[in-house]
């Protein structure tokens, strides 16, 4: 897959402070890339450099092969951008606002009316098409912001903490909207420090801390690379605690066993074949197993593991 956006050796200094250093990121087409990290990690600075709002101290960003800082107007046709807290022109109607940005992105004139209706439909603002923006709720304005960001069919959508300040319902709507954009093949770079926001949604992530990218890749790849073991959860019925403990203790690749009631969690350093053998031995020993499976690591687990305890 060709990369839609490439950042190489990206660096940004503010006064005596290095906000971003040596960032190398390449996002292929169709990816939903989550940029995660604590406040002050450099996520917003990275996104602002990526969309041409901040000039990097060093390095470069190209979008679809166009250098964002050398040919800003050329690159902007490929970029859709939405920041965390933003305002809209309150004295306009919804369609007028989108019409302005369609023209500002220099879309072909004949395409504009149909495209406005299309994005209004996509973000679910059909009933508000002719309403004044000042009458919209925060969530609706957020939808309008996304409609603005996608009006010109950008190749990549850069979203900086897009759910900030939204209530749970609006957050859910936003997630659904982004999912539908993903399904349409839009590449998205989204930053957030609320990790559950990105769960089950991003195809790959980048973990930033202190201006550096500490890990980047698909969640599975990062998870596999960072874990020398898998976490397995086991459930059974009946009085089999002793048998379970005895059987599992026999296996040298198994450690960290915790048994609670008729459930156990353990870490296993072997292959999938060997894990299957563990299950077979339990069944052969008469344990009536009802559940047996690997516990997938959440983005939050990965982040906590990588950023504070095991990497930094």
């Amino acid at each position: 897959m060709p990369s839609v956006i490439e950042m190489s050796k990206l660096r940004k200094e503010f006064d005596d402070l290095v906000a971003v250093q040596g960032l190398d990121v390449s996002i292929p087409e169709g990816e939903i890339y989550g940029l995660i990290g604590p406040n002050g990690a450099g996520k917003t600075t990275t996104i602002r450099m990526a969309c041409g709002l901040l000039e990097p101290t060093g390095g470069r960003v190209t979008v679809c092969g166009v250098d964002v800082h050398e040919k800003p107007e050329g690159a902007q046709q490929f970029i859709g951008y939405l920041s965390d807290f933003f305002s809209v022109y309150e004295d306009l109607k919804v369609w007028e606002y989108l019409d302005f940005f369609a023209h500002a992105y220099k879309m072909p004139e004949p395409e504009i009316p149909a495209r406005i209706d299309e994005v209004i439909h996509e973000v679910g603002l059909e009933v508000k098409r002719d309403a004044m923006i000042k009458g919209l709720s925060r969530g609706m304005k957020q939808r309008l912001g996304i409609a603005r960001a996608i009006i010109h069919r950008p190749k990549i959508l850069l979203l900086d903490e897009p759910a900030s300040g939204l209530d749970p319902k609006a957050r859910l709507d936003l997630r659904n909207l982004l999912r539908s954009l993903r399904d349409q093949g839009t590449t998205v770079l989204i930053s957030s420090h609320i990790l559950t926001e990105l769960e089950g949604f991003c195809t790959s992530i980048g973990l930033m801390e202190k201006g550096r990218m500490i890990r980047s890749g698909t969640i599975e790849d990062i998870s596999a690379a960072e874990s020398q073991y898998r976490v397995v959860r086991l459930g059974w019925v009946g009085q089999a605690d002793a048998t379970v403990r005895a059987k599992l203790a026999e296996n040298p690749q198994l450690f960290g066993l915790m048994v609670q009631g008729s459930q156990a969690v353990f870490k296993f350093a072997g292959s999938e074949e060997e894990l299957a053998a563990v299950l077979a031995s339990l069944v052969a020993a008469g344990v009536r197993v009802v559940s047996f499976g690997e516990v997938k690591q959440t983005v939050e687990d990965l982040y906590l593991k990588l950023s504070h305890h095991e990497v930094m």
Partner: protein
Amino acid sequence: MLRFWRNPLLILHVRSELRPARAAMAAAVTLVVCILITMGCWSADHNDVREFFRDLYAWLLGSQFAVLGVWSAMACGQAVARERELKTFDFLKTTRLTPAELLVGKLLGAPIIAYFAVACTLPVSIVAGLVGGIRPAAVLGSVVLLVAFNLFYSLIGLWGSMLVEKASAGAVGLLGLLANLVALLFADGPFRGFAALSVVPALFSLHRLRDFDVGRVPPTVFGAEVPCVIVSLVLYVLLSAWFVLMIVRNLKRDLPQIQLLSRWQCVGLVAFLNLLFYAFLDTRRITLPSGQWSFSHHFYPSDVAVLAVLWNGLFLFLIGVAALSPPEKLKIWWRKGKAGEASYLAAHGLPWPWLVPAAAIAYALLVAEACGLRSVVPLGEWRLGFVGLLFLAFLIFTARDVLFLQWCLLTRMKHPVMKGILFLMLYYAAAVIIGVVTGVFSTESAPKVMTLLTAFALLGEIQRPSAPTIMLVAMALQLGVCVLILVAIQKRLARPVHIAAASAG
């Protein structure tokens, strides 16, 4: 850009500010104001109907200039800063609109309601003028002047708005209108062309109001008398071009990244301003010391030379400020310089080396002027040797001040340039006070102390046969100060950078 009426930003302003109800309200208010002005004029004594219409025309025209000027300067003075405050400007910057398109959209769009209101009154004023016996050319010329005047001061407002964080500070754009009054001070001097910056002389001369001094004598351009309206229009266009250049260069940049002009543009600006100086110099006012002399109307050649030095002292400082390097860029330049990849004259290096060619061009133009007039004014009367030293002294003092401002930019001060200028003002005030206090004890020492601290004290020495030693000492002293500031700047640039400390959250 040429089809400005299709500018998306202009259309946005028209849509948001000229909705039918709002436009109707503006038109109604305008109508009421017109009626009130008409009634006011009617109540005054008039010999005939034509006089009444002339009065009405004058009042309407004055109101149009005042309303459009103030409204536009204010609206444009807040246009960019307000969008920054609302966080909508980032979205504008990430569209494909070029800085020139943004400029046109803001310039014409921000004061759109004022344009509309004035457009409503235009037919009334034009009819009143024509019925009142005003020449059609004068009526038409007034409209052209109104548009040019308004665009020029709107540009100043927009330029100011680009440089401030808060929209409230954008009201400073109104100060640009004060230039109208200040320019009138030139109306009766040897540089009458500068008075054309004010719209008043042009309007007076356009309507042939001979009862007033202002605008009665047309300004000279390279010795030839040119109608004031033409000078005003050309001046507005030329100066607007410089403002457009600065805005287009910087409109899409963040505040800390703004550098008003490139190095060569700074040099070009000084050359342009000097050309204006000599173009507007009415050489008929230059008198030889042996001739009849009157301070208010005539100048010695050496006075013109002193004025040229003062003029260039001011403009060297202004271009120094315009060419200050953003701290981040300066650091990159410094690192590259250490690695041997950037020269001292690079685009984002220290600004002071570029003051040298600017001062040299300014001096060369003075010499050219003196040579051009040598048939009427002997070269010796200009005291070009001493004036050259004065240029050098002003160059050194200005370089010191500019370096100080560059150092301020590298500190963590808030509004570093503004504060740096305030510190410089404090310094000059202190220098004057020290000079005055010294004068209490020794009248001979006071000028020497002043000379050591400011270049202005040197101007009074022009009639001396040779440069005083204290002048050379002052220059050496200030060069030493420049070196000290350079060292301080270098220390700032060499400070190690820290990695951002991320906080969990």
